[in-house]
């Protein structure tokens, strides 16, 4: 059984700026990646390394500048979220006559067990888990 997570954010910038940040290596490095590689063509790769060292690997599924993109998503070395096993779909909707953008990101295919919780209750859990992860390492 798989799950779908959906997130929205309003950005006070035109969609072309947002689209570039989502589809170029330089752009990804400005907000999510320590390192990134992008070959912006359907079937080609998008990969990046998170600041914590985890490596995301994906291939482009759909590229419709400047309003829509989607790519497969997985973590290198992961069994449950293997590369190719999930998809990230991003739709950009212009707001305020193009001065702003609504970003809707949908992440599909995550295994049910991987669903997360957001909320203050996790704070304690996070603290303990950080200690475990620091010792265990990946």
């Amino acid at each position, binding site marked *: 059984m798989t*799950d*779908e*997570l*959906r*997130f*929205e*954010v*309003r*950005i*006070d*910038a*035109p969609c072309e*700026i*947002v689209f570039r*940040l*989502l589809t170029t290596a330089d*752009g990804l490095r*400005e*907000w*999510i990646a320590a390192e990134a590689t992008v070959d912006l063509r359907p079937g080609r790769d998008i990969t990046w390394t*998170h600041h*914590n060292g*985890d490596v995301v690997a994906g291939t482009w599924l759909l590229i419709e500048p400047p309003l829509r993109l989607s790519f497969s998503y997985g*973590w290198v*070395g*992961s*069994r*449950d*979220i293997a590369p190719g096993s999930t998809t990230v779909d991003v739709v950009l909707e212009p707001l305020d006559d193009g001065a702003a*953008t609504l*970003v809707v*990101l949908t*992440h599909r295919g995550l295994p049910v*067990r*991987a*669903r*997360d*919780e*957001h909320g203050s*209750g*996790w704070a*304690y*859990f*996070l603290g*303990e*888990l*950080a*200690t*475990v*992860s620091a*010792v*265990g*390492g*990946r």
Partner: protein
Amino acid sequence: MWVNHGSDLSLDTETAAARFRVIGHPSRLEILRFTGDRERTVGEIAETVGLTQPVTSQHLRSLRDAGLVRVRRVGNRRLYRTDPDEIARIRMHLDALWPTALADLKRAAEAHAGTTE
């Protein structure tokens, strides 16, 4: 600003609570630390954590059921190891991966547009 439409929130809460119950025990945390970097036998774990083997086995059972520890048989021994994938996955999702990332995207885009404060 944020709208999270994750499905079936009631089940999320139960899963979350179950994870709390499993992890929220000093001995289990000790076990996870000890098995974090290398496979260990029940005997090694028991000795390090300072518990009897039966009690240690019970804790390991709980951790296995939660998917946090994996076991491998070598001959007649069982070797336990923290599942790094599960830990990492939990970590990443608990770190609110996408909300955090999208907040960073917002900041970067607005800096380019000249609209950040």
